[in-house]
């Protein structure tokens, strides 16, 4: 009887339709279009018809080759050295530009290389900027996910005390979350200013002048770190709140038992708190990973991918192509790669945490 009461095909469809149709049209359809466009030469506006090009977009971005350069040798077979005593190598261009003997090197450029005996090993990439953005994005995620999750847990434990006024502190820690990442990026860009910038001044005051001011965003060795620090500052309150919800779901009787058993603070955390947080941990890692892969505003506002591509990231590249150069197919290919990365890391996190449970 109850079953018949709730059976209603027409009403059911009608009420679900607007939501389902909108999601189908504006999330699912573009999702599949990204895959389709990435196999074509689709542009935003083009006089020519779109053509199927297979995996060319992917090859143009992911193409890699390793090549060993042998030194130039004189008549005795000794390596030629330049005026500065460094071994001289033939120009890479000889192999990559229209050389029929090395088809796999065609149009590739040097990404990085190292010395091996007298030889020089060079890794070439079809698209060096893309490869850098891929590596930077993965680096960003690998640092941000554990650090931000850990910091958020620390804050959650700090805020989970019974103290007067604790709600005020919770409200303050969460505050940056409601502020736009664009606003936060611009503020931090100012804070990171070189020379007399706020951060430089704070650090030199804290070390009584021992700290050398630096150009945080203008230096390849600090730019990414600066972006990471401000990203965590902005996002950590969000995950603190999720941890907190997890903490408050743990039954108080477990803590009472631990107390009666005389367990110390660390033991209580290790054997009561942490096991109770496992599901929360998986969720938080997946959420942070997804958010971290989407890194864009910070880069666009603070560094534009510089200096020397040290903060190039995938979404920034996808936008630069798909929107900036109106190359929809190239931007779509990057989007697909990004999605596959997000998906595989989410699955990995889920599998790893499930096995341990």
């Amino acid at each position, binding site marked *: 009887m109850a079953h018949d009461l709730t059976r209603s095909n027409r009403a059911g469809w009608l*009420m679900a339709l607007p939501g389902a149709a*909108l999601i189908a049209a504006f*999330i699912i359809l573009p999702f599949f279009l990204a895959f389709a466009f990435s196999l074509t030469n689709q542009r*935003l506006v083009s006089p020519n018809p779109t053509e199927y090009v297979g995996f060319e977009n992917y090859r143009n971005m992911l193409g890699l080759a390793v090549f060993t350069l042998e030194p130039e040798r004189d008549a005795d077979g000794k390596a030629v050295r330049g005026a500065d005593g460094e071994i001289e190598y033939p120009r890479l261009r000889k192999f990559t530009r229209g050389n029929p003997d090395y088809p796999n090197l065609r149009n590739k450029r040097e990404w990085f290389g190292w010395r091996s005996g007298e030889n020089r090993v060079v890794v070439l990439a079809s698209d060096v900027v893309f490869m850098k953005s891929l590596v930077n994005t993965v680096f960003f995620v690998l640092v941000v996910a554990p650090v931000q999750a850990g910091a958020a847990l620390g804050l959650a434990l700090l805020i989970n005390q019974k103290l007067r006024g604790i709600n005020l502190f919770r409200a303050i*820690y969460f505050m940056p979350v409601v502020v736009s990442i664009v606003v936060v990026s*611009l503020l931090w860009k100012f804070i990171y200013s070189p020379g007399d910038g*706020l951060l430089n001044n704070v650090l030199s005051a804290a070390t009584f002048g021992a700290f050398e001011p630096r150009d945080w965003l203008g230096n390849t060795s600090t730019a990414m770190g600066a972006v990471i620090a401000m990203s965590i500052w902005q996002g950590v309150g969000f995950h603190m709140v999720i941890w907190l919800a997890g903490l408050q779901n743990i039954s108080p009787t477990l803590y009472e038992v631990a107390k009666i058993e005389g367990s110390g603070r660390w033991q209580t955390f290790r054997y009561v708190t942490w096991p109770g947080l496992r599901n929360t941990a998986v969720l938080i890692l997946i959420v942070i990973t997804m958010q971290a892969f989407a890194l864009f505003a910070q880069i*666009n506002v603070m560094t534009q991918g510089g200096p020397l591509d040290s903060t190039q990231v995938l979404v920034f590249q*996808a936008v630069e192509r798909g929107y900036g150069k109106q190359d*929809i197919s190239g931007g779509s290919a990057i989007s697909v790669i990004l999605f596959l990365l997000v998906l595989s890391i989410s699955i990995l996190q889920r599998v790893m945490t499930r096995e341990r449970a």
Partner: protein
Amino acid sequence: MAAVSSDNRGLRLAVRYAVLTLVAVIFVFPLLFMAMSSLKPDHQLLTDTGSLRAFLPVGDISFDNYGAAFERAPIGVFVLNSVLVTGVTVAFSLLVCSMAAFSFVFLNWRGRDAVFGVLLATFIIPYETIFVPLLLMMSQLPWIGRGGIEVGWLNTYRAQIIPFIADGLSIFLFVQYFKDLPRELIEASRVEGAGWWLIYRRIVMPLSGPVFATAAILKFLFMYNQYLWPLMVVQAEDIRPVMVGLGYFTDQLNVPWGEVMAYLTIITVPVLAFYLSLQRAFISSVASTGVKG
């Protein structure tokens, strides 16, 4: 003996508050700096970074930066656009997503579980991975306007609104909440002959205040803070939202920092005030995204 232990407790308490306060300072100082700097002329703003004056309303204090900012950019228009786009999206989203969730929870129809499963799966698609193909769609979708059928959604409000009305997370939040409502109430109303729309409107909606607040807050934050998408689809000044309007200040050769701080304060303080007045609701909204399955 007793005195020693109470001293000890007092000290411990002091240490706890000191740690909490130190952490609070880390989260507050950039925002405090923003608000204070917006009141200072550029030359003072830049030299004040050398001392604690950076966080105090001292020196040559005035609202001149605000006046100059309003002269440089049509800030009123930007704010109005953001309010319009955000408000309309939130309103439609609440209606559309709660209706869909209602149908998934209380009604039985063929294909229901499959459709729900697919919608949930869209969870893992970050918006950033669909923006490029969505941009192409925007350039080619038709629309029925005043002059009949026209092509193209670029440079419109609808491009900023319609794609973001429905999403898997919102529907999921409603579903989780509706599941806990007393089913007998709905079935009893059916027996008495109430239609589904009436049940949704008169029984479920009035019982679901908290989840509507949660979904509204999350959508509001997402929409008001959107940046990448309006950057891609909006070129015209008269429909630009606040985050994109920032370009008026930062694309200058000599960035007028005082005006920038004033603009940042204008677009941030209302949201912060809104947050602080509804602090519990905001925080429990985020917390509820974590209570899964």
